[in-house]
């Protein structure tokens, strides 16, 4: 590899980039070099500046100072359209799909002029169908309005939207976090083909297994600064984590296997009697004990999310009854507000669509659900609310700590912490978490598992839906596995393992073998 100063072969180069949001320094001394025909990993904890790098490359923002070179030429990326013209396309973590358009139209959204299509409709249909099929979306899904697609399918659409462009550099910002494994593998195959044809990919992910699978080189960010770039051989999970955290002593072993002591014969606080999530799906029972962390696993669209929404009272099950038991008294949950009043809190899955108030401050985002508890005649007292907000920010380690910061200035992981804080501030005894750690870095995850254990020891019950099996193994006492909108198994103790969860998610391995 040549080391002379001008490196014309680089697809994109960032040099000494600094970027500020007002007084907050998001990036300082950031360097990045992407070669043609490589998959380049970008890793770092929440708030390390990854998302800012992505936004700079996407043309959403221009850096405060520093140079961006595209194909050797210094450029000011002033708009996403400008970045596209230079061959940089970006897929964001948030699944931005226009519900008003058809799925196919979404693939070519933004590729056309306002009044003129650059390609014929037939061509678009063909190209969109082809790319979506290669990513594993069925013909039926193509005809479905995007609003009815699952989270994974919506993400697939946003990825397809990027792939149909004429691109030199594809930026994937946590874009695989909602994908199911099969789609992810198909995407990786596609990426590998594009790489072999000389195109480059910047891959931002928290998943070490994905990084190991895919990348040629990786650049590590720590608190806004670039720590270094490793090639494939050097970039072991351990080495990357050390560079991200900046310490040698890793708490990696803390991923303790669920069984924190002998399984307690605790009191049952929630019991589901013969509930059915769909009109024709099998009914099942489920009970949740005081002080346990119950995991919920399942492939996307197999009822895991619907189960949480039913427990939260947001969407009643088709049949059956959910009964809660508090202090010897039994109640049926009557809707969402009733569930909340009785101490059940639900953290929804789609952070942007269902969680955050982008125009408001951290304070508002955190306090919104509990204002009524501290108010008389509709006027609230700020004292107890401020204390509650500060307590949650401190406990969850939100950066920055100042509650007057606009929520839009926080990184994804910190915004997620604020959302979890919103519901913890309500002091619930049952906390329902719908995939809360999607796109959150490992350090935060380990902290969060510890927090869950502490809360559980204080008597709170937690239901944790996660798409990452490792996460369930690390955080949960028991794991319920959903398939076809019903719970197929509740695994605990000896029977709780990665392989067992996978087997239940996909159905019995024997039947799989018959087909192959």
């Amino acid at each position, binding site marked *: 590899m040549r080391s002379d100063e001008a490196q014309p072969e680089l697809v994109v180069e960032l040099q000494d980039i600094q970027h500020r949001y007002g007084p907050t320094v998001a990036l300082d001394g950031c360097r990045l070099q992407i070669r043609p025909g490589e998959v380049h990993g970008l890793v770092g904890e929440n708030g390390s500046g990854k998302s800012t790098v992505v936004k700079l490359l996407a043309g*959403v923002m221009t850096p405060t100072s520093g140079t961006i070179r595209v194909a050797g030429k210094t450029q000011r990326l002033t708009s996403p359209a400008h970045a596209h013209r230079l061959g940089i396309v970006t897929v964001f973590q*948030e699944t931005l799909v226009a519900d008003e358009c058809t799925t196919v139209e979404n693939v070519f959204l933004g590729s056309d002029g306002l009044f003129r299509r650059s390609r014929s409709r037939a061509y678009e249909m063909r190209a969109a169908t082809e790319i979506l099929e290669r990513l594993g979306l069925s013909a039926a899904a193509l005809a479905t309005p995007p609003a009815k697609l699952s989270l994974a399918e919506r993400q697939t659409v946003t990825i397809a939207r990027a792939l149909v462009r004429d691109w030199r550099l594809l930026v994937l910002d946590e874009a695989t976090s909602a994908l199911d494994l099969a789609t992810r593998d198909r995407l990786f195959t596609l990426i590998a083909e594009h790489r072999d044809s000389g195109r480059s990919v910047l891959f931002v992910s928290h998943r070490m297994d994905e990084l190991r699978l895919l990348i040629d080189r990786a650049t590590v960010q720590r608190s806004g600064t670039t720590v270094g770039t490793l090639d494939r051989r050097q970039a072991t999970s351990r080495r990357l984590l050390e560079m991200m955290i900046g310490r040698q002593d890793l708490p990696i072993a803390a991923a303790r296997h669920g069984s924190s002591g002998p399984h307690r014969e605790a009191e049952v606080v929630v019991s589901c009697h013969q509930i059915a999530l769909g009109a024709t799906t099998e009914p099942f029972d489920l009970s949740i004990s005081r002080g346990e962390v119950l995991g919920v696993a399942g492939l996307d669209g197999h009822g895991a999310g619907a189960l949480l929404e039913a427990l939260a009272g947001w969407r009643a099950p088709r049949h059956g009854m959910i009964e809660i038991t508090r202090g010897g008294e039994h109640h049926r949950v009557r809707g969402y507000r009733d569930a909340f009043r009785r101490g059940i809190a639900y953290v929804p899955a789609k952070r942007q669509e*269902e969680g955050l*108030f*982008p125009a408001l401050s951290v304070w508002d985002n955190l*306090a*919104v659900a509990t204002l*009524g508890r501290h108010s008389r005649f509709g006027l*609230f007292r700020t004292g107890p609310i401020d204390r509650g907000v500060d307590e949650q920010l401190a406990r969850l380690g939100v950066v920055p700590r100042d509650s007057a910061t606009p929520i839009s200035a926080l990184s994804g992981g910190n915004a997620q912490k604020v959302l979890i804080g919103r519901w913890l501030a309500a002091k619930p005894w049952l906390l329902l978490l719908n995939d809360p750690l999607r796109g959150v870095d490992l350090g935060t995850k380990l902290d969060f598992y510890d927090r869950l254990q502490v809360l559980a020891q204080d008597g709170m019950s937690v239901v944790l839906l996660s798409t990452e099996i490792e996460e369930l193994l690390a955080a949960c006492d028991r794991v319920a596995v959903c398939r076809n909108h019903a719970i197929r198994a509740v695994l605990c103790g000896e029977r709780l393992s990665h392989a067992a969860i996978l087997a239940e998610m996909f159905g019995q391995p024997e039947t799989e073998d018959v087909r192959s």
Partner: protein
Amino acid sequence: MFVILVLSSPAVWSRTGVMSLLVLASVLGIASVGQTWAVLIGGIDLSVPAVIGMANVVLATLYVRGWPFGVICLVLLGLAVAVGILNGVLSSVLDIHPLVITLGVGSVVTGAVLVATKGNTGGTVPAFITSAVSPVGETFGVPVPASLLLWIAVSAVVLYLERRSVLGRNLMALGSNRIAARLALVRPFAVRICVYVLSAGCGCLAGALLGGFSGGASVNIGNPYLFSTITAVVVGGTALLGGRGTYGRTISGVLVTTEFTTLLVGRGIGANLQQVLLGLAILVLITIYGRDRHVAQRI
């Protein structure tokens, strides 16, 4: 802005001049309260002028028939609540944009007033309302017009509610993200009703004050306030998409808009050209500081 105004027409720089400016501003300011909140929850209230006209006519008509002022106030309050509930319920239940709903309700209100009065909308208003909007008026011996004091009081209450009431914070949340607001225990239905009732109430107040200018009544007296309330909100910097802004911004928007109009009138510019220039000024102001970064952040 104020400096330009004074330089161009020095007559304004007198106690009476400043006071007449502020009296005009106070009527617009009171009428803009509901518009601000309606915009904050991501809606809009186009029934404001109709409500102003209604209050104006009802007050004058009933007063001329010798009804006690207190009873008339109760009637107006009842009407305001009715119009507000109608706006809130229809925009929630029908799930149609409030633009359409409030325009329709406004038209119904104006029509109903004309039917009820058989088109005979004359009358007189109490003398103290006339003095309340008089630039040389006094309030309990203080040389300040009552309408200005009323505006200050209303502003104080509204700003306090925005900061310290559950309703105030909930309306920001609702305007910022509807789905998340429902999941965060905000009651969209209740918030909407509160907002539109407040809007109609403030419209009634403004309508009553306007009666003081003319001494008589007209169902169309509120018409200029459709454009000017929205102008004041937008010029103040509250985002039309909802969730971002405060009534405090609208206050400055009201002052700027009023000064600008006075400036144009002072230069002897006709009503039609005024409209043109006011429209241009809004476009310029919005380009300068009304831009919403939020949309750009989300691509």
